[in-house]
């Protein structure tokens, strides 16, 4: 056990599984000697050699397309896309190929691959180093989407994703890379995909969130507790596809009042799916409108990013509204 930041936990997860399974390969821009721009792959080329952790040409389409080929032929590639904002050149390989290979070949060909990518705001990255694109991917059948919010989960979910027989998009909230440390067990362990995590217990209301919004929700719940002595539950969805819908519905039924929190623009975002699930399957239990707290429906700004990103204050306002409805 040691206290690790999230990015260290990612590094440790990669290292641990690579020691046990020599079919696991890392590839991407600058993941080799430099260790990745966030140092998530630091030291891995040194330990495992250029064959197992290597720099690629500057082509996301190539990274994912070649990664798919490696996966088809017995390897378990972990492809890094340097920023999620730069994944779009690989969109076709991800949504048309990786996600549909098993289906279209009747299970004859499969793509056990992970695409890792840092996402989200909070680093003054402006339009193209800040986006949260989970909704683009969660709408794509055949692709799993996982987003950790703690070092422990980052390592455990990443190992589960690598061991998963299907393609997984693993989105890492870069704002949390070095935000805090946590005890992380050594060696290989897994965290089941398609399970949610209750971060804060409570039944006055529930906040659904993921990634970098989890600490924001937690802080909001803490302040509500402080100011109003009400217990607001915080649920970290962590596996966005497949989602543990039962757990989501149950929390809503138990709490009756719901806020869904995301960084991404609101319109057609992932939060909308949560609202839709509730409007379809738990509407009888809802004692208030389902409030979404989200980024705005604009590109991601730079200087004003902290006015764009949802913060605890904005979440509190929404929670108070549903509590007072």
């Amino acid at each position: 056990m040691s206290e690790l930041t999230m990015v260290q936990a990612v590094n440790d997860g990669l290292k641990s599984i690579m020691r046990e399974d020599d079919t696991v390969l890392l590839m991407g821009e600058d993941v080799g000697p430099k260790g990745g721009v966030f140092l998530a792959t630091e030291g891995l080329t040194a330990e495992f050699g250029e064959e197992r952790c290597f720099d690629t040409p500057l082509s996301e389409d190539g990274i994912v397309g070649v990664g798919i080929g490696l996966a088809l032929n017995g390897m378990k590639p972990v492809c890094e896309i340097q920023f999620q904002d730069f994944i779009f050149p690989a969109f076709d390989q991800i949504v048309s190929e990786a996600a549909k290979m098993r289906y279209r070949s009747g299970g004859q060909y499969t793509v056990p691959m992970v695409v890792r990518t840092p996402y989200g705001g909070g680093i003054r990255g402006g339009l193209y180093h800040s986006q949260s694109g989970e909704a683009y991917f969660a709408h794509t059948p055949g692709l799993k989407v996982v987003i950790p919010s703690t070092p422990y989960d980052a390592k455990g979910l990443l190992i589960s994703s690598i061991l998963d027989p299907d393609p997984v998009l693993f989105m890492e909230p870069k704002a949390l890379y070095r935000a805090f440390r946590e005890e992380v067990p050594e060696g290989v362990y897994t965290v089941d995909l398609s399970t949610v995590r209750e971060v804060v217990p409570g039944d006055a209301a529930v906040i659904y969130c993921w990634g970098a919004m989890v600490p924001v929700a937690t802080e909001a719940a803490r302040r509500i507790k402080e100011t109003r002595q009400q217990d607001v539950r915080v649920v970290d969805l962590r596996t966005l596809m497949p989602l543990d819908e039962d757990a989501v519905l149950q929390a809503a039924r138990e709490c009756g009042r719901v806020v869904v929190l995301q960084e991404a623009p609101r319109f057609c975002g992932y939060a909308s799916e949560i609202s839709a699930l509730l409007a379809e399957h738990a509407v009888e239990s809802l004692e208030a409108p389902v409030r979404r707290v989200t980024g705005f429906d604009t590109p991601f700004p730079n200087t004003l990013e902290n006015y764009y990103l949802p913060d605890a204050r904005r979440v509190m306002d929404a929670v108070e509204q549903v509590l007072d409805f």
Partner: protein
Amino acid sequence: MSDTLQILDPSGKKVGAAPRLKADTLLRMFRAMVRTRAFDERCMKLQRTGRIGFSIPNRGIEAVSVGSAAALDIAQDWVAPHYRDFGIMLYHGVEAEAMMDNMYGNAADGSVGRQMPVHFSFREPLRYLSISSPLGTQIPQAVGVGMAMKGRGEDGVCLTTFGDGSTNTLGFHSGMNFAGVFGAPVIFLCQNNGWAISCPVEKQTASEGFAVKGEAYGIPGVKVDGNDVLAVYRAVSEAVKRARAGEGPTLIEAVTFRMGGHSTSDDPSKYVEASEFKEWEQRCPLKRFRTWLIHEGKLSEEQAMAMEAEADAEMLAASRVAAAKPKPALETIFNDVFETMPKHLRTQADWCIGHYSSRGEGVDEKGEFPL
């Protein structure tokens, strides 16, 4: 075509050094070409009579498919194909019936009726990667397949095929580039058939043909007469040898012609001159090979005619068997999305099966592909 490798000229005369091939290999190649033509013709008829929805003409490109197939060792090699390559499968022992299963989209189809016709997926007897419609995507995948073999110290290669138009896709650019950088054992076979649907090669690229595109990636480029099965065989064999020797990838441009529409939905008379078809008919890959084989005494006229008749009968029979097989079950809409069906899909599947079976009410089965 001065810099173009040719062994048999259009009249079937030998003009270059023929590769050493045993007589039965030569006959196997010829037979695969004949069967390719027969499969193609049968599919065209099935489509015209409304039995299947769609096909992709393979007429005129039999030599490219079969010549390249014959250069592979399917015990270790892979193919990452495009859609216009019936001959690779037929040469390597894929049953015509299995291919017809795909044309009909029945329950026995490799893609379980999920894909359109001509989107084959085979793992046995050869690793013939599931074809998808988005063009060029198989090219970087082929490179990954090859890199995996190289990484494990295996001797296999991956052949990837694609059309002239597809050299403009992202996949061509990224695949060629990665292959060059990583020295992947891959053969890039560009089937230059003159057209991308209605777009002629001059409007697709200003380069001097396609072989030259290798230079941009440090990959040797070779141009070959694509209607000359021996030349294709030689070019691909040499590329395979290089790849197995660890000398990296090769780009091969096979110059041929699409002797028909792009697909059964396309009418080429709108944009291809009739004279072009006439001209290329003179270069027919089957006739050429047949003439040479007969001239060499490896094949008799009677044998050839028997083979042709047999192939026609084989394809007709295969289509009848495939037509009689059942449709995929409703459950197949839902499985193979993931290895394990997640709960939300199980719910949807149960609902769907319940809905349609309880009602006993059929759905409207119309539907025809316009392209």
